[in-house]
């Protein structure tokens, strides 16, 4: 019996500029930068056929193959783009005599949920969660749960507040055991249910994300909880949901607490509760941090106020007017010269 080969070759970190040739499809991938480490491997931004895409390189060929297959099936089943990152190819890349399994997909631009809320303000938390739930509902309707839902696997478009899920390594058919999870977002770890993939599992993680966005749990507290029984973890979590913390987020916290306890029957009910928090804020000033002229975000306060306010005539508009006038004059002159 030969035991010479280690199960999985340890994964090196590829430096920017490295060109990785694909073994089966002949494409080349030039590493631009490391994006992050996901469940099944490391994600890089690369140049592929003169376009920027994301590739995930793993150690475990089975895991990468499975992630690709699940994403492919789900993409085919959903039929519309923009929910799952667009999938390109599944291949092996060669480097230094070793072969690593890889999958190439769309590179999604945007900011982390923390950054988004940091820029736009806490009143956006229910909007973000509501959008995220909509995404999750689409997956659930196709028989899958996302499972490894956490801040790092979520990206928001800075301008449209659109939520994009980015790491599908945890995607699991509903009813099976969850394979990839992060303790902080794991229902079973907090003693609040099983570790079976179902819509409630995702709802729990979503609610926990909400709590994290209001105020993150101290890592030292988490370390301490690792040596405590699930009942103590549960009590800790409930203490963080109480309405006694007076920070203006009591209403949101009450909704999140209901979701953590599994009191919403389905994600849509949770989403509607969140949406009920979105009332027009009359007379309140828009936060100066929001970029003024570019407001394309249909949000809790944006649309109504914009309808009432007339835009000021600024320098850009004058510039445009002059440019258009000059252009018309020149074209007119040319036309006149031509007709001579």
């Amino acid at each position, binding site marked *: *019996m030969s*035991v010479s080969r*280690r*199960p*999985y070759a340890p994964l090196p970190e590829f430096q920017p500029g490295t060109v990785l040739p694909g073994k*089966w499809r002949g494409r080349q991938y030039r590493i631009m930068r490391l994006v992050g480490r996901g469940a099944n491997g490391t994600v890089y931004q690369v140049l592929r056929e003169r376009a920027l895409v994301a590739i995930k390189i793993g150690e*475990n*060929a*089975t*895991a990468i*193959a*499975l992630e*690709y*297959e699940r994403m492919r099936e789900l993409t085919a089943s959903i039929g519309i783009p923009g929910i799952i990152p667009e999938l390109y*190819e*599944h*291949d*092996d890349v060669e480097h230094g005599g070793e*072969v690593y*399994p890889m999958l190439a997909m769309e590179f999604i631009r945007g900011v982390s949920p923390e950054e988004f809320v940091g820029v736009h303000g806490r009143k956006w938390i229910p909007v973000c969660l509501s959008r995220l739930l909509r995404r999750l509902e689409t997956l659930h309707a196709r028989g899958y749960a996302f499972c490894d839902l956490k801040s790092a696997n979520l990206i928001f478009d800075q301008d449209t507040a659109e939520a994009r899920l980015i790491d599908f390594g945890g995607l699991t058919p509903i009813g*099976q*055991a*969850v*394979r990839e999870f992060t*303790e902080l977002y794991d229902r*079973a*770890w907090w003693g609040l249910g*099983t*570790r*079976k993939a179902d819509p409630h599992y995702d709802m729990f993680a979503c609610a926990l994300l909400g709590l994290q966005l209001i105020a993150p749990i101290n890592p030292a507290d988490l*370390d301490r909880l*690792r*040596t*405590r*029984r*699930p009942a103590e973890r549960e009590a800790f979590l409930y203490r963080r949901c109480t309405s006694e913390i007076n920070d203006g987020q009591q209403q949101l916290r009450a909704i999140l607490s209901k979701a953590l306890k599994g009191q919403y029957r389905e994600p849509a009910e949770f989403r509607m509760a969140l949406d009920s928090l979105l009332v027009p804020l009359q007379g309140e000033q828009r936060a100066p941090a929001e970029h003024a002229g570019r407001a394309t975000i249909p949000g809790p306060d944006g649309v109504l106020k914009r309808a009432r306010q007339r835009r000021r005539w600024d320098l850009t508009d004058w510039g445009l007017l002059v440019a258009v006038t000059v252009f018309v004059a020149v074209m007119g002159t040319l036309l006149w010269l031509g007709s001579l």
Partner: protein
Amino acid sequence: MWDGVTLQQLLLITDGCSNTGTDPVYVAQTGRARGVTTSVIGILDDGALGEQGRREAENIAEAGGGMCRIIRVAELSHTMQMVTQQTMQLTLQQVVNKELRNLVGQETDALTPDTRTKVAKFVETVTEEADVQIGLVVDVSASMTTKMPAVREAVRDLELGLAARTGSHQLFVITYPGMHGEDAVAHRLEETRVADTIGAMRAAGNTPTGPALDTAIRTLLENREQRAALREDRTDADAKGLRRHHVG
């Protein structure tokens, strides 16, 4: 072929190096020869793992056909979960590879990505549905004392993860050294009591990793025989029942 598949694996959790009894690397090799995979988790925090312990951990895992992870105690829970699951996958993958070598002279890694995907889906289904028997071999020597609460919660967590699967599971805990001077003690533990029992373990003295692994392998193999005997009994009874039915 895959009906009633039982995967048997050992998971050794230690923060030191063996210092008495048979060579654990040899024992892991014998286990592998009889279908029991051995993986190792080495814990770094203020232990006596060192370079020697780290090398031993890697060698045990290699001989045992499993994985080796050297981690901080905070990562224990997640690592145990991951190692258990990936070892199952790995074991199945090795069986499939052997079949593939016989059939087409290739291993999965040499297949085209499309074909590999089919193999992966198959492996994944069996991973979810196979019956598993896991022997946790836990070092409870003095330096582990402060880590026992974390080990207790990690075991509880592993049980939660296993319970979510479709296939059945059995968990054995083998602690070493024993509290009364024995090399190792095996506990067949039911459900959530596993964790609480293990949390109460305290011991000092030597680190007989080899004999502990040996006890663990024997425990799993005995159990396999018992289960096989039980299944035969049942088939016998069925056969008799069938015959009676025909006679009657």
